[in-house]
């Protein structure tokens, strides 16, 4: 593939983003920008205790407050379904996971700080908030279960009284390998053991969640405007499982969405509430989350506690890997929560290496905390962090070079069937590591280390590989694994009479630049200008049933559907052209927007063919229908496997424990690249989130009371501009995906998956260069933790 700048349009061009113009001028249309005539506002009264019996909710005084339309409590939602979980995990004994009901409003008990207890609908937000203060809630507080190890103990307080314990499931993978793995550990020449924590994070898209319910009695149509990454998924889950609204009576619109990072995949109570209340109150009902509410109601991410062991033979070949993980589900199962520590994590435990035997155990725990679900990377960052930290530790224990140890164990032949049930179709891990050594200037590191030493700082270099499974997913495979939905996507290509094109896609763009990148593909296929093509997304009344954007799937899955639909368009257009040119359609060639008869100078332009399709005066009506619009659904035959190598260089101030990132390099293999500028931007943002996890971010609960200690930007450390360096990113190593028509793999999560281990590896390296034999520090590597590690070493 050519590098940036060599291609001016179509596939491979760094086309400037067309969506930027509305965002830069204040003309975006985010959900909170929508106001519907006559709308009321809802304020949710949320639990301020982590765990308690809800004795009563007295709304009588509040109901008499000015402007109050109606107040709802859990009792109003007894007749509707709970918020569903979309993935049933089967435990190692073949039993289904424990699945508690997740009510729209708390009923009987409250189970985490922030759980909605009552909802006040009023003429203004201020009136709703004032009235909520007048609601009298009587809660008998119960002991809170916050720490997963405590939750697992015999006799622990139960988060859900109707479940047998706080254990959601005990998952073993691959259970049949367990004996062989144990045998391999007995025979190992060296075993490295590492206990680590993958810290709990809050996704924090800059746009807080918003939901507006609207209902038209005239035709019994519900409309939900919501900040979602996947409007069709919300329509399906909320319509079918919660409120019982058939799809043809429910429209879900997700307009411009200000970032998602996973936490806007899920169906939330507030969406169901606003949809329900709009009908009950016969008024549109709007909810806008404050940031404080977001911290205690958006699904959190990560939160694993793991022991990982790596076995090596006398020649430093990896012979086996095993892990034990406690994974926090929070108080309820969010939409994809159960799949994250299992199928999105265990299947990646081979990493980039040919370790022949792997066993993964995951115990998922209920606790009195906000539900935990997918956050950028979802399971794959947790897998990568474990593998790449334990390899680094093994290299240090064995005195091996960390790059050489990795290279020695790379998978090099493809396709490669891992011992954890996935098959990598293609890759070239040596090539990304070669590129990393170059852009990371490894050869200059020792000189830089000495420069730092001269300033009284310790410098470290940390590297890691990563691999991820993206483009979720083959529906038949995920169905076998417990998914309660298909995971194809869909696109409709509507060619208009004068040749312009609207492409309706199931994917949703909330920062990824689909409105620019998707037209580049269609423009290339037809040979017309990108400006002739627009993408329509985010409205179930306009787009075909696609599953939305997450898991770096948009281009690999929805983009493939778009290619298939465009191929159908071209095939039909060739028939029309053949008629107009009085030739056989098998002789028609399409190039640069012109249809021509092979070997002749006869041709007809794209616009003449499209016009003929809609003004079929001279048209083969006996053979083909008029019009030019095609839909394709695409269900991938495998995941895609982006992979790469990352390097981080840090300086540690030994006096304060402060870590600064001095250099960061990322060499990724994303297969083919449609818009290099956008791809680089995705990697930058992912790295920033990964560095945030490694150095700054950590969601914290008081272990006794269950109070959320990091409930705002005053106490949850978001990465700022002066926390981060420029990044050297490269995606010129390209082994195209072998099974989708574009050869693309996906790039949205790589940065967040690939960066945390290299940051931590770099800090450990820096401490060793300062003579401190520190084996491990848990993320986030705050000055406090690093200083303590230095001074206790």
């Amino acid at each position, binding site marked *: 593939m050519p590098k940036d700048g060599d291609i001016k349009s179509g596939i491979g061009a760094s086309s400037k983003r067309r969506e930027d*113009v509305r965002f830069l001028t204040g003309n975006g249309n985010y959900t909170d920008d929508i106001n519907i005539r006559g709308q009321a506002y809802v304020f949710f009264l949320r639990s301020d205790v982590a765990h308690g019996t809800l004795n009563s909710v007295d709304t009588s005084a509040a109901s008499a407050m000015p402007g109050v339309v109606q107040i709802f409590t859990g009792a109003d939602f007894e007749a509707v379904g709970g918020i569903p979980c979309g993935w049933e995990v089967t435990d190692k004994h073949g039993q289904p996971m424990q699945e508690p009901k997740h009510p729209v409003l708390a009923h009987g008990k409250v189970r985490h700080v922030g759980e909605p207890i009552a909802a006040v609908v009023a003429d203004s937000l201020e009136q709703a908030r004032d009235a909520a203060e007048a609601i009298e809630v009587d809660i008998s507080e119960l002991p809170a279960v916050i720490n997963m190890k405590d939750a697992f103990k015999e006799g622990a307080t139960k988060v859900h009284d109707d479940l047998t314990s706080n254990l959601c499931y005990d998952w073993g993978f691959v259970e049949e390998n367990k004996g062989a793995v144990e045998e391999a550990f007995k025979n190992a020449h060296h075993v490295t053991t590492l206990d680590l924590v993958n810290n709990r994070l809050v996704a924090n898209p800059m*746009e807080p969640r918003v939901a507006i319910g609207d209902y038209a009695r005239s035709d019994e149509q519900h409309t939900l405007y919501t900040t979602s990454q996947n409007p069709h998924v919300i329509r399906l889950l909320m319509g079918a499982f919660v409120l019982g609204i058939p799809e043809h009576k429910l429209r879900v619109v997700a307009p411009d969405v200000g970032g998602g990072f996973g936490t806007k995949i899920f169906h939330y109570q507030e969406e169901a509430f606003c949809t329900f209340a709009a009908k009950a109150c016969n008024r549109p009902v709007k909810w806008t989350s404050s940031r404080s509410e977001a911290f205690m109601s958006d699904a959190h991410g990560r939160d694993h506690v793991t022991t990982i062991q790596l076995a090596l033979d006398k020649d430093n070949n990896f012979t086996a890997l095993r892990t034990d993980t406690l994974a926090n589900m929070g108080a309820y199962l969010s939409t994809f929560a159960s799949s994250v520590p299992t199928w999105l994590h265990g299947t990646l435990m081979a990493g980039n290496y040919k370790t022949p035997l792997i066993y993964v155990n995951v115990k998922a725990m209920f606790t009195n905390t906000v539900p935990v679900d997918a956050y950028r990377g979802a399971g794959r960052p947790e897998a990568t962090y474990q593998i790449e930290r334990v390899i680094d530790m093994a290299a240090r224990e064995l005195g091996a070079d960390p790059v050489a140890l990795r290279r020695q164990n790379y998978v090099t032949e493809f396709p490669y069937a891992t011992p954890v049930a996935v098959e990598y179709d293609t890759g070239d891990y040596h090539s990304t590591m070669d590129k990393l050594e170059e852009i990371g200037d490894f050869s200059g590191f020792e000189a830089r280390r000495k420069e730092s030493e001269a300033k009284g700082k310790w410098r470290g270099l940390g590297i890691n590989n990563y691999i991820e499974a993206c483009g979720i997913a083959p529906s038949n495979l995920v169905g076998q694994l417990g998914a309660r939905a298909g995971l194809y996507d869909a696109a409709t290509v509507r060619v208009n009479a004068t040749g312009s094109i609207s492409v309706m896609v199931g994917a949703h763009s909330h920062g990824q630049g689909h409105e620019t990148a998707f037209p580049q593909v269609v423009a290339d296929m037809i040979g017309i200008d990108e400006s002739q093509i627009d993408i329509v997304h985010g409205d179930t009344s306009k787009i075909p049933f696609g599953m939305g954007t997450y898991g770096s799937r948009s281009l690999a899955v929805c983009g493939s559907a778009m290619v298939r639909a465009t191929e159908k368009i071209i095939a039909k257009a060739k028939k029309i052209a053949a008629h107009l040119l009085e030739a056989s359609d098998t002789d028609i060639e399409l190039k640069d927007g012109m249809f021509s008869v092979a070997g002749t100078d006869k041709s007809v332009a794209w616009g003449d063919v499209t016009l003929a399709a809609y003004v079929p005066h001279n048209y083969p009506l006996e053979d083909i229908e008029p019009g030019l619009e095609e839909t394709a659904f695409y269900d991938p035959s495998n995941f895609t496997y982006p992979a790469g190598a990352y390097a981080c260089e840090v300086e540690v101030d030994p006096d304060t424990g402060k870590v600064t990132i001095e250099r960061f390099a990322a060499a990724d293999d994303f297969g083919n690249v449609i818009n290099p500028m956008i791809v680089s931007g995705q990697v930058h943002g992912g790295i920033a989130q990964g560095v945030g996890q490694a150095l700054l971010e950590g969601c914290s609960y008081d272990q006794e009371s269950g109070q959320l200690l990091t409930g705002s930007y005053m106490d949850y450390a978001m990465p700022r501009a002066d926390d981060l360096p420029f990044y050297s990113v490269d995606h010129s190593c390209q082994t195209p995906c072998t099974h989708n028509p574009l050869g693309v793999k996906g790039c949205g999560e790589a940065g967040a998956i690939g960066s945390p281990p290299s940051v931590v590896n770099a800090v450990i390296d820096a401490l060793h260069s300062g003579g401190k034999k520190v084996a491990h520090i848990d993320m986030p590597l705050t000055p406090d933790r690093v200083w303590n590690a230095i001074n206790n070493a």
Partner: protein
Amino acid sequence: MAQVTMTVNGKAASGTVEGRTLLSSFLRETLDLTGTHVGCDTSQCGACVVHVDGVAVKSCTMLAAEADGADVATIEGQAAPDGTLNTIQQAFQDHHGLQCGFCTPGMVMTTAALLKDNPKPSEQEIRVHLEGNICRCTGYHNIIKAIYAASGQDVAALGAD
């Protein structure tokens, strides 16, 4: 309730507000200028930055009543009347300095204030100046480049790809 009158993007604007109404709410709800965004409730994120009498202000931290009589500039007034982007806006598009766009109005307004006071900021000065503006999408890499370019300096000097 109080009557407030101010100039917003060069035009007279007025409305009736509660004492507790924030300037951000007045702009968004009363004037329908929804380009000013609210991303937090603790004055940290900077998505709501506007200019009040020429000074960058977090409009979620100022009461509408406090802006009575003021000259307010918002993101909606930055491009030319024919829609042509101003230098800062154009630099953000040229350098891919935005993704989801939610923090962008605040970034543009903060940049305008920075360049007024410091027309040729260094990389480090830009990074420090953005302390009060959080972006979750870009990792700031391209925002720094965009601001540097908007100041008329050669981005090649930054040594960033």
